[in-house]
């Protein structure tokens, strides 16, 4: 079977959905410029040749405008896929996303729908404080938004197709180091076998990346890879790790998580975002309140420290949770 990178898989999802449905279009900065890059991470490269420059719509550097225009177009029956080049730029668009995209259905008592996808690249990758942040947590707090974070090419394609067909605003997070990195980081290869035939992945269905019996580790995006390599090492110590990738934070597959915790009686949550108020806090609260009886020890979170993302590689590496951090946390919850 074919192995695709995340960038290739996302492009294929967009292309298929644009062929299938004439209301689907892309809007963003640098996405269709001839001689350009197809967005900051090549996802839309070449699409304007097939779909033209109205459906691969290049915009001014106006993130607020992009999000607001996407909302308006979605209200009138289009299905925009909007793109901000770096997740950190999404803060410029917050009013449109939170006050309009997320609330117009509610304010209209269900008469309106806002079927839009916001593609948001996240993750530390050597670019300093304003091009590195993971921002998923800001959005799980907003009723009316769905939050998706695929960790590999297969999931990326299937989830993006579902996102495009969803009648709600979907915040779709892509990790920069997973797009198709040419071996820039060890242990991070998000390529996956992607079938030729069409498939969709429903929201709210977690993927168990690895079966285990002693401890449940929940992670998304790049952290899945960090946890996988930690789990390999922990195996040598006789600790069997079950890895759960929720794939969508909203809606959240609570059943799979609780079932896993019921089996392992231990839980560790890992995210690249900093600790305080991150989605790990919500996850921890949920497991503690609904799965308290299953836990043999207090759960642990492995997160970045509460600082901005630093630039110096030596500092960034310290900042991003790594294998050693995961191993330490697992040993602690296992009382080893």
């Amino acid at each position: 079977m074919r192995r695709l990178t995340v960038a290739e898989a996302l492009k294929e999802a967009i292309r298929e959905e644009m062929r299938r449905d004439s209301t689907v279009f892309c809007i963003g900065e640098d996405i269709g410029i001839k001689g350009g890059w197809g967005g900051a991470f090549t996802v839309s490269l070449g699409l304007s040749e097939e779909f033209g420059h109205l459906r691969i719509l290049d915009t001014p550097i106006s993130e607020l405008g992009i999000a607001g225009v996407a909302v308006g177009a979605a209200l009138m029956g289009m299905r925009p896929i909007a793109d901000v080049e770096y997740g950190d730029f999404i803060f410029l668009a917050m009013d449109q996303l939170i006050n309009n995209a997320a609330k117009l259905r509610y304010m209209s008592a269900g008469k309106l729908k806002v079927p839009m996808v916001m593609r948001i690249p996240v993750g530390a990758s050597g670019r300093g404080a304003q091009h590195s942040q993971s921002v998923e947590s800001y959005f799980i707090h907003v009723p009316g938004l769905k939050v998706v974070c695929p960790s590999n090419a297969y999931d990326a394609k299937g989830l993006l197709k579902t996102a495009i067909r969803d009648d709600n605003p979907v915040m779709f997070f892509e990790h920069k180091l997973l797009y198709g990195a040419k071996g820039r980081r060890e242990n991070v290869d998000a390529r996956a076998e992607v079938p030729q035939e069409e498939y969709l992945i429903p929201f709210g269905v977690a993927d168990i990346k690895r079966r285990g019996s002693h401890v449940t580790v929940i992670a998304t995006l790049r952290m899945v890879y960090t946890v996988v390599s930690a789990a390999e090492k922990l195996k040598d110590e006789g600790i069997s790790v079950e890895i759960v990738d929720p794939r969508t934070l909203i809606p959240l597959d609570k059943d799979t998580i609780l079932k896993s915790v019921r089996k392992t009686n231990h839980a560790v949550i890992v995210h690249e975002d900093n600790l305080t108020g991150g989605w790990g806090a919500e996850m921890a609260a949920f497991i503690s309140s609904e799965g308290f009886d299953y836990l043999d020890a207090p759960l642990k979170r492995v997160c970045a420290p509460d600082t901005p993302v630093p630039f110096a590689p030596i500092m960034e590496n310290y900042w991003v949770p790594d294998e050693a951090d995961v191993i330490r946390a697992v040993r602690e919850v296992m009382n080893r």
Partner: protein
Amino acid sequence: MGIPGDNLIKMYRKMILIRNFEDRVHRLFLSGEMPGTIHLYQGQEAVAVGVCASLRKEDVITSTHRPHGHAIAKGVPVKSIMAELFAKTTGCCKGKGGSMHVGSIEVGMVPAIAIVGGGIPVATGMALAFKMKRLDRVAVSFFGDGASNGGAFHEAINMGSIWDLPLIYVCENNLYGASTHVSKVMKLKDIAERASSYGIPGIVVDGNDVISVYKAAKEAIERARKGEGPTLIECKTYRRGGHSRSDPGQYRDKKEEGIWLAKDPISRMHKNLIKMSILTEEKGKRIENEVKAQIDEAIEFAQKSPSPKPEDVLKDVFA
């Protein structure tokens, strides 16, 4: 002036309807019969009515925190607006919206967007959808002078301009953003000048003269329908009341108030119509009485309507 008398009477009636609606709502709020807060539209009726007179039902508008006039002008049923203000389930948003979010997509009004400037990009996006779908529809964004200092205004107008969208940006310059006079926050004399930054026509009109507004809007709407892009229309107008229900407007100069109140759009239209022999005093009275009866009926409807169930709060979050 080439506008059929019937159309003028229709506009006149709409303005009277808005004025009476707002006057009654004001009293209902002050007497504590209505919950929430309100931002009233008295004094600006000519803008909403003059613009919406050239719109079709399938054309769409976005509005602001001061939306009752736009809703009435675009054809949202008065009963359903009143019921919304009374927080009833028969309201245009089933009680989930309230005064600042009235609207009804069936007649082309998105629930009003009460974040200053927030509706401008949304209207732009709706116009983009019309262009992409090759539909003969236009979008209008109503907003105030205050919004024209915000990023949403500039980003959206630039995008509407570069893509030649079927769109009209209607700025209601009522001289105040809440309590702040426009001259304190802007060096330009006319907000319409800002259109030149984006390469689109910018037009200043007397926003208290419904016929001027109507003509400017009609021309802009025709331009938009022909695919010639958006127009920024600045309507110079004035709020008769305060910013919101509890505001006595002490920051306003009495002389300034006097000048503007003398330019009231409804009494001017009344005088004009009489002069043109389109309206008689008697017919004017009759219209006023009919409108008042319509509002009485709306209030009765609203008061008798059921309240939403508390647990309805959980509905309509996701499609």
